[in-house]
């Protein structure tokens, strides 16, 4: 088994608002191994992006704060690092790709400028080698004509190419961990397929650990090794991708999977989960999925279910699973 790169233990992140404490992440634990892709899937507002931002310590302080837990990257707890050390980690050890490439790129700098910024910042290279490094980052993301592209501006590229440039910036310092937050959501179907194939290729070449945040089960099925299903601030089930699809144990996972229309199945009526996710300000008592759960029992309304480990890779928080 390969080394564990990142271990998140019992992470709690809250936003302190005038209406009260919003527990966006409420006790999340998971790990990612070297060369592995861990998917975090969930509906909007379930805390998947906040989990990513907490790892990078990029929460909008002071309203957003990690209140409890550990984030251990290769033996070091990121929450104990000084601000200065943390800055050196971002981009070098951990990098991030966001959903919309047009907002993550600066429109008035060339592609080359934007990639070389992180190269200069994190790698002690003589100036004449910086360009070579930039071009090799563009090559890694299979961007055609890298020498020409370095002198172009973001508006001159298509959406798919822009997202590759964002990927090139993220990979330019060969990080150990890459957090990808919905990187393919803004892309067209065929371009998305290209991008995902590219990710696998990069992972084989660099052995980077990837956290892939998405709401799209199609994407999950394609590139994740293991998946955590998040709901209202908590991971309800963690399992290898195959088990998530073929043998989901948590009623929420099962319901979510069967509510996604699939190409090779034609049902007359889609299964739909009634109701909506709860407000994070007023979580229901007991299990947080209980008000929408079709198999809820009395105990579900009273006590929060503990996490049950079925085996090394599969754990579930549900009173029905023993």
């Amino acid at each position: 088994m390969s080394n564990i790169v990142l271990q998140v233990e019992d992470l709690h992140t809250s936003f302190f608002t005038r209406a009260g404490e919003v527990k966006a992440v409420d006790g999340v634990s998971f790990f990612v191994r070297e060369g592995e892709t861990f998917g975090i899937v969930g509906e909007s507002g379930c805390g998947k992006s906040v989990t990513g931002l907490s790892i990078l310590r990029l929460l909008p302080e002071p309203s957003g704060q990690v209140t409890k837990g550990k984030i251990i990257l290769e033996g070091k707890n990121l929450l104990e690092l000084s601000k200065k050390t943390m800055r050196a980690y971002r981009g070098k050890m951990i990098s991030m790709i966001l959903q919309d490439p047009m907002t993550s790129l600066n429109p008035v700098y060339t592609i080359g400028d934007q990639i070389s910024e992180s190269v200069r910042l994190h790698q002690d290279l003589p100036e004449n080698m910086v360009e070579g490094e930039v071009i090799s980052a563009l090559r890694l993301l299979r961007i055609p004509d890298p020498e020409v592209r370095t002198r172009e501006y973001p508006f001159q590229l298509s959406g798919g190419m822009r997202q590759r440039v964002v990927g090139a910036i993220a990979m330019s310092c060969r990080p150990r961990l890459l957090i990808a937050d919905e990187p393919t959501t803004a892309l067209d179907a065929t371009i998305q397929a290209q991008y995902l194939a590219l990710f696998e290729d990069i992972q084989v070449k660099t052995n980077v650990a990837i956290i892939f945040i998405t709401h799209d089960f199609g994407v999950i099925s394609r590139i994740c090794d293991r998946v955590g299903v998040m709901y209202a601030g908590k991971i309800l089930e963690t399992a290898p991708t195959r088990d998530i699809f073929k043998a989901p144990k948590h009623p929420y996972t099962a319901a979510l999977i069967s509510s996604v229309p699939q190409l090779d199945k034609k049902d007359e009526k889609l299964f739909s989960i009634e109701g909506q996710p709860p407000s994070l300000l007023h979580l229901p008592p007991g299990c947080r999925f209980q008000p929408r759960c079709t198999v809820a029992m009395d105990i579900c309304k009273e006590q929060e279910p503990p996490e049950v480990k079925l085996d090394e890779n599969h754990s579930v928080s549900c009173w029905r699973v023993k």
Partner: protein
Amino acid sequence: MADVLLEVRNIVKHYPVTRGLLQRTVGWVRAVDGVSFTVEDGKTLSLVGESGAGKTTIAKQILLLEKLTSGNIIFQGKDIYKYSAAELKRDYRPKVQTVQQNPWSSMNPRMRVRDVVGEPIFVNAKLAKKEVYENVGKLLNQVGIDPEGMNRYPHEFSGGQRQRIAVARAMALHPELLILDEPVSALDVSIRAQIMNLLKDLQTEFNLSYIVIAHNLATVRYMSHSVAIMYLGQLVEYGESEALFNNPLHPYTKALISASQLTLPEDAKDSSKQIILSGEMPSPLNPPAGCRFHTRCTEVMDICSKEIPEMKTIGTQQVKCHHYT
């Protein structure tokens, strides 16, 4: 066979590209370039394609928000450009309504839900306020919203509920055709199924016809009776939904289906099961010669870059590809 409600015949939309002080036309964006299809009574046609394929332009043309460059749109047997202004207002516009993708931008945040949903009725029917609001209550009930909610504002509702309200507004004038432009793609996974089921139920209850614009093929298969696959302003494949999904003919359709399938990682290693296209869709300003798809096609032949393929009928499908001539 059901009756044809709407027929689109060889429609074209070219936008001029102008340059300089005198705004001289230097080229044309061929957004829609000769598209034909029919929508039957009580059935759903889906338009599928990547962004820039021309799907939304077609929707705008049918809704009379864009003029045709050429071609005909025939509604209930009559060309809509032959309707007089009064006839359009009475016989066409109320019967063809739309639901937009984003329920956050398709409603005026300063209007109460009763006025959002009631506005089409106020404009088109001479009814007293009280009667209109009674209708609004019924409409909201149909789409699964508590009629009590009509006095609230749109921001007080969640995304799924807002999309229901948008559907209620589209239903207000008892339309025959709804144009649904990406009706579920802005919604969460667990909410999507609710809205898709609602749309199907309404279709059965009121014998509605739908034109669904979508990029997610699984959604399309679930919703539609027939499917038209678009690429660069043209249809590349068109046919009955089941046949098209079970036996896709055009290489582009095959690639799209491959991209939308759930593929578990261990299957993904088997590259024969996955088709990954190279490159991107060319600019509609300057489409490639011959077959428009030949620059990205995985089954390209010599003839593809030279001659434009014609639409061929094979069984219940039509396909525009040299492999079938």
